[in-house]
């Protein structure tokens, strides 16, 4: 029986020639579409021909290098013997840094340490731009995965996307020779201003009678209820639920000197808090609604926590920093269909330790 494979094989045997670069590239890149005999023909030849095996290895590595993936392969090779030890991968363009920890033979945790600066402004776009991060290949026996999008990551059994960590914000100030010192001083100065502002706000709120209630609520909110869902307007023993409805609070605040006078005005305290949280390495990434967007009820709040089974306290606050909704949630999203009056609202996720994420939205 003569066919093109036997003819090719015969030629190689009789002439001592080698597989062409194109044939090897076909074997590497279109392996899945080769027939059994085609695969067998090449693998048999590679077994007996040292030069072709060497060519195969060189082309394989070179393709990865030219495709900007070689460092990822070497990363996974580094991970082979390391369990529970994080190895950092920096993308070829240095814009993205991913920390990868091998949990077991086939399980990896990925944690994004930094992302391109433009993404800092577009957190809601993280889902789309996740593809930017990873030309990550998982070498698992003969299987090779190329991750193009976050969806791909989610669909991979051998991967678990643990956390998308916000990149650090670099202060946009001029950098003279002693740039580091200036930056540090700037931070101290900014911190001092924030503390002073907070003190002024606390002073004014404590001077006004109803302000005290807000302060108390705010403090108790940090410790939070331990279970179930609670909403403003319900009456029970939980101090959080003794808060007045948002509309009522806002109406009262309108009368108070030194406080926010408009339901759409930003709350300086919360705005500063939000800036501080979002400029650090937060453990929770807000996916939607994007910070500062208009929403309509029902609205789905979506975020990515740093791990599985993370219980967080979800709260919606008025621009007076008054809770109008709260709930304990163990997951990545929560859909709310509560009637909220037009205005600016903040929403935050709190763990037992601290505020993990803070966003804001408008109801028009």
């Amino acid at each position, binding site marked *: 029986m003569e066919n093109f494979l036997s003819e090719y094989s015969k030629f190689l045997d009789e002439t001592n020639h080698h597989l062409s670069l194109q044939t090897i*590239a076909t074997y590497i890149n*279109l392996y899945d579409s080769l027939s059994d005999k085609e695969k067998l023909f090449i693998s048999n030849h590679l077994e007996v021909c040292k030069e072709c095996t060497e060519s195969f290895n060189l082309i394989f590595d070179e393709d990865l290098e*030219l495709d900007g993936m070689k460092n990822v392969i070497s990363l996974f090779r580094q991970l082979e013997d390391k369990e529970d030890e994080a190895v950092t991968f920096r993308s070829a363009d240095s814009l993205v840094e991913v920390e990868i920890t091998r949990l077991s033979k086939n399980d990896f945790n990925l944690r994004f340490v930094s992302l391109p600066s433009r993404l800092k402004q577009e957190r809601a776009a993280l889902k789309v731009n996740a593809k930017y991060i990873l030309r990550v290949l998982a070498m698992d026996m003969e299987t090779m995965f190329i991750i193009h999008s976050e969806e791909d990551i989610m669909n991979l059994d051998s991967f678990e996307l643990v956390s998308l960590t916000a990149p650090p914000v670099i202060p946009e100030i001029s950098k003279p020779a002693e740039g580091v010192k200036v930056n540090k001083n700037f931070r101290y100065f900014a911190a001092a201003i924030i503390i002073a502002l907070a003190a002024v706000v606390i002073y004014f709120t404590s001077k006004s009678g109803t302000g005290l209630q807000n302060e108390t609520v705010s403090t108790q909110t940090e410790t939070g209820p331990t279970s179930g869902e609670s909403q403003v307007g319900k009456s029970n023993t939980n101090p959080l639920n003794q808060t007045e409805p948002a509309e009522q609070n806002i109406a009262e605040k309108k009368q108070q000197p030194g406080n926010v006078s408009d339901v759409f005005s930003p709350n300086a305290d919360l705005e500063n808090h939000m800036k501080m949280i979002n400029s650090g390495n937060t453990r929770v990434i807000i996916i939607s609604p994007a910070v500062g967007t208009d929403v309509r009820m029902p609205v789905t709040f979506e975020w990515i926590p740093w791990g599985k089974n993370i219980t967080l306290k979800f709260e919606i606050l008025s621009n007076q920093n008054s809770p109008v909704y709260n709930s304990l949630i163990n997951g990545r999203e929560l859909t709310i269909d509560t009637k909220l009056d037009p205005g600016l609202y903040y929403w935050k996720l709190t763990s037992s330790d601290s505020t993990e994420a803070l966003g804001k939205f408008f109801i028009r």
Partner: protein
Amino acid sequence: MDINEKYFSNNTRGYKFLNRFYLKYREFLTKTAGSEFEDFRNRIFFNISGIKLSGDWINEEACILGAMKIECRMLLDKAIKSKPETRLHKSDQIIGEDGISISEPLTTPLPQPHEIPEGEEVFNMINLYKLRLKKGERDFLNNIIDEKIKTEIGGTGSMSVNPGERFFSFLRENKLNYKMFKKYHKSE
């Protein structure tokens, strides 16, 4: 979005690959694939756009990039074979347009120049041709190659229907020897 925009325009993954490949093997490729990168890119684009993916490939990007890499190797193969005396000068470092440094060109072991055997040509062309086929058609063709389908395919499963007819047309168009297949073709 067409193939050109998705894989051949600036800053796409395909463009970057081609650019790095060309920079690395420019000394060879200028002889056969154009003296400018644009010529090289256009040539690859011309070849790839003619493939016309069947549309049932799960990962289109992997297919296009795979085909691109194969085309690159094919051009390099031809370049090496046409100028066997050419040797690459080693450079300390090659920097791509995007600032990525690329290692020295692969100089050894390269295949010796030789006449392209028909078997090799058929193998390479058939496998690029498979990109045009739907999965069922690919499996069918692979069964033919593996000789799992014998003459009993005649009748309702005759090769006069797709993909067999298309495949024979392809072989004829490309002036390839299709003797291996002709016994499966009822009209031969």
